[in-house]
């Protein structure tokens, strides 16, 4: 047992981190608000980095890495708030032509999702539908949609289905579709983890700079303790998120669904609680559109709800662990 990143994993993590800071600085991220949440050119750059083809076998044109690696990549994407249906397109690689190469943008939904909310309605090409029988594809252009405006997250535009989902064309059977759902939850947990640490860094940096009562506010114990809790939540979630990636790849080390439940739940908790705290640490500035804290907060809520929210996973965990 050696539950620490390998040198290759560290290289992957650092590669993506510098890619994101070079190609997705916050100005670029914010600018996609005007283009339906996606910038096609940058989307292809993400594909070139292997974001979507990461777990696809090499002979299928992929990078041939595992979920443990993918989780690290998605942590970086989350940290940088890279917008778009990243996890769905990644899951669609190999199932939907063009997803792996970034030509086709894939969004997704659970068939029994009563909200009928579709993400990236104006920019995604294909909708992937998961249900108990498998995974299905539908062209977004064929959906009957009504606008929903404004969205919670300005960088995650949404619309609402006005007619029942079409059945679609089957791309996957029930078993692998269920695995896909767990992988999606694990990768989303990676993004949430990235947000939870980025928002901690943002709060700490601000608290060292901002002066009130003639001292940096980071000297006030009330704030120190809030930020200590941010770090604690993130680090505990990190254990679960990495373990989920490893377990998806190597189910002999433990039950996959349980590992994913722990990851998605604790990462969601860390991201939502930490982003709220970051706003609080910023005071009035935290309430503005200008400071990035609100973008982190909003994305945290978006991703916390994706692939099963905390309520879902808490109940699932009780069933998985105790029945």
């Amino acid at each position, binding site marked *: *047992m*050696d*539950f*620490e*990143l*390998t040198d290759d*994993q560290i290289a992957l993590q650092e590669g993506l981190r510098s890619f994101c800071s070079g190609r997705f600085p916050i100005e670029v991220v914010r600018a996609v608000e005007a283009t339906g949440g996606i910038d096609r050119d940058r989307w292809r750059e993400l594909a070139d980095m292997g974001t979507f083809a990461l777990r696809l076998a090499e002979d299928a044109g992929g990078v041939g890495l595992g979920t*443990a690696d993918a989780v690290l990549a998605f942590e970086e994407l989350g940290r940088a708030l890279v917008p778009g249906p990243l996890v769905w397109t990644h899951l669609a690689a190999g199932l939907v032509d063009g997803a792996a190469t970034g030509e086709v943008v894939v969004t997704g939904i659970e068939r029994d999702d009563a909200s009928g909310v579709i993400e990236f309605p104006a920019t995604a090409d294909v909708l992937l539908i998961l249900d108990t029988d498998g995974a299905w594809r539908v062209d977004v252009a064929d959906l009957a949609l009504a606008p929903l405006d404004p969205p919670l997250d300005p960088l995650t535009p949404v619309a609402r289905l006005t007619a029942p989902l079409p059945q679609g064309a089957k791309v996957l059977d029930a078993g692998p579709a269920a695995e896909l759902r767990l992988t999606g939850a694990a990768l989303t947990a990676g993004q949430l983890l990235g947000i939870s640490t980025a928002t*901690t860094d943002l709060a*700490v940096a601000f*608290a*060292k700079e901002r002066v009130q009562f003639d*001292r*940096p506010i*980071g*000297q006030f*114990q009330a*704030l*120190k*303790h809030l*930020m*200590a*809790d941010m*770090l*604690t939540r993130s*680090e*505990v*979630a*990190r*254990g*679960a998120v*990495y*373990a989920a*990636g*490893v*377990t998806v790849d*190597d189910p*002999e*080390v*433990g039950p996959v669904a*349980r*590992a994913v*439940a*722990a*990851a998605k*739940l*604790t990462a969601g*908790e860390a991201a939502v609680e930490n982003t709220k705290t970051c706003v609080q640490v910023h005071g009035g500035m935290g309430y503005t559109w200008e400071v990035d804290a609100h973008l982190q907060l909003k994305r945290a809520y978006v991703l916390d709800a994706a692939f099963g929210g*905390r*309520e879902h*996973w*808490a*109940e*699932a*965990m*009780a*069933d998985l*662990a*105790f029945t």
Partner: protein
Amino acid sequence: MDLRYSESDLAFRAELRSWLADVLPTLPPKPAPDDWPARRDWDTGWQRQLFEAGYAGINWPKEYGGRGATLTEQLIYLEETTRAGAPYIGVNFVGMLHAGPTVMAEASEEQKAFHLPRILRGEEVWCQGFSEPGAGSDLASLSCKAFRDGDHYVVTGQKIWTSFAQVADWCELLVRTDASSKHKGITWLICPMDLPGIEIRPLRTIVGSSEFSEVFFDEVRVPVSQRVGDENDGWRIAMVTFSFERGTGFISDLVETDKMISELVELAKRVTRKGATAWDDVALRREIGQMQAQMDALWAMTKRNLAQAERNGVPGVGGSVVKLYYSELFQRLTDVAMRLLERASLSRDDVGQLVGSGSFVEERLRSTSFTIAAGTSQIQRNIVAERILGLPKDR
């Protein structure tokens, strides 16, 4: 990242598990909580059994008679012993986990040769004389004073919350040897507990028993040869003592917490309300599911800490994060038990069919100490904020 146990890890686990299965049923019944001599015998008897089977000092290096196990084996050891309900380390706690390792790191060869084998065999019980009425979180402000008189230090002052003092042979004692410097005026002594002038007054704890005591020193003459390290260098040595709490220090508490969550589920299945069991209530299942998720995450983090310690000699984010998280999780789960039990929580004996209700009530009371002992949660948060996040110090 790899979570697989090696062949030798699995073999170690199997061997330990079968030894525990053989030996645990042969243990005598647990003594009454307030029968301290009997408790000492029971705990040290277990230590002796561990020693004879080669499991004593699992984390101690081989040169000091320990098993010198890898960190992964230590994790397995703590997991298996706690799961199997093996006796808690009990009165051996200070000797095995604090004083022994400190002696190994800082004491003279004679001191090592004298104490370490005895601690391992369960022949010596230690207590920790650090805290004082005026010096708890601010330990370095301690004032129990010692002055040199020939070959002796003459110690006068008071210690408090000293766990197991009434059955201890030795005390790791911090004394003030220089009043003009706060941190550089402290000395670390090995004080025999049978010296004239020591008076022990047991304190009754929140659970009604007397795990800890006040210890009064009235011109107690401690030989200078009992000093560890240099005079006035005791604060540094105390920091060494504290550092042994990191790494594997809290692992058995984590396994215990995990076990308690399962027991809470069993309790919830026994509690009936409105014709159904409490476990049928989805709100409760979610709440317990959330705690289990947090527990699993904490356990995964511990494995990461161990991997980092194995590689760089320093555990990842350290003990403060672990302690903060598990202590509050444990308290929350005993709170849920109190809410579940409603009026059945009025007794510390099991009420009717509610097997285990009494122990949950007791754990609710006992766990109030988890966020106080070994550095309060507020102090842990200060440490995380200042040492990990680099936030500016208050002073």
